[in-house]
């Protein structure tokens, strides 16, 4: 993954108790989230799955 995206995600997730690595595993496995941050990220992930492809 782009290091700048990793850094950006790390800043966004500060204080949520969820790391970028955990989040990536969570989204790929589509496990149920255990925090508000993870739930919102997973919703974005699923929206991208359902979205139109260019």
């Amino acid at each position: 993954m782009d290091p700048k995206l990793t850094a950006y995600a790390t800043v966004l997730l500060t204080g949520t108790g969820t790391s970028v690595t955990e989040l990536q595993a969570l989204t790929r496995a589509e496990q149920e989230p255990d925090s508000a941050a993870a739930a919102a990220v997973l919703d974005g992930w699923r929206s991208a799955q359902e979205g139109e492809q260019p």
Partner: protein
Amino acid sequence: MTSAWFDLGLRLHAAHTRVPAARLAGAPIVTPHDPVAVRGSLSKGEPTLTIATRDRNDSVTGAAEGLALLATFGFSITRPDPVTVVTDQHAPTIRALQAVVAGWSEGNPHAEAAAHVVWTLNRSDFPHAPALVDVLGLCRTRYALGIAPEGERDAAVWRDWLDVPDDGLTGVLDLLDRATSGDPLDGLQPLAEDDAYTWARAATDYTEGRDWRSPESIARAALGLRSLCDATDLHATALLGDPLHRRAAVHSGHVTVGTSTAVEGRRKGLTLTSERLGSRLRAGEAVQGRVGGPMPTEPVFTGTVRESGVEDGRLVVLIDGVTGAAPGAGETISVHQAPPNAHAQRRGRGSIGRLYATRRSWLATGRAPKATRREVPLDVLVAAADTD
């Protein structure tokens, strides 16, 4: 904060698949008329313009030369429909076009082209109006990339992600095609009608000598600002017509999802109870609702927010005057602001215009009017603060 996390989910998915994540299922602008790619720059006050279509590409330096080149690409206020300017260098191109028009002088044979450019510049502030398309902004509205947000300001990045090999102006037209694929959002039609109306009026003004060559009246300036606010409101609710945007808007509070309960003693009322407290629904606001989550296509009921509050840690919104297929008790519903009535907006602008034209009206005389307040859309404030 959840909006940013939702956006991060889009980006992580795009990074994982190496495919841009769609923010919108539909195109965020109406199909542009005759798009022409333009890049402009200024050096010591001298504009340089490069203009291209799919089969032609020319570049000149100088205001008069620029105007002559624009004329050869069909820029003329006498056209039935305007040319759409598409650029990946938004601010420099606007400055160059401004310099081209500022360099016009009596005797220049391309006044009709200059009048077209003035209309284009006047409409460039309008949200995604197809007069002057900032193609990178359009791409950002349509897609999220698997990179950090600041990287999306680079045209080369978009060309890479959207598979556009040409880094010239033909590539700009290719980016436009990618960003506008599919059908335009339904709610954009009033904006297109407004564009057509202002184009016809600009043509009349040119014919009657009331164009950029004469000073703009206070009434025109005021109506222009009012039009911009109205267009921004229309565009914001047009986006809510898109299912992917509605899904994201749950996280910004623009769409509220909860459980419906009938209100005792109110035949046409219901309450929406939501675990999520962040909501932008306000008392007095007209709303549209869907049964189920935010994704189903058509709204099935409308109503007006009567009041909202927090009870037992949950958001409770009372909606009155419900029409359409009212949801049953216990059903999941999603509700958002209803689109403004474009006809009412036009009537409002018409009445302001009449007040300015009437010598003894409070507007024309400058007497203090009865105070009425409205919110200025955030996009308008941001555009006003933009120094580019």
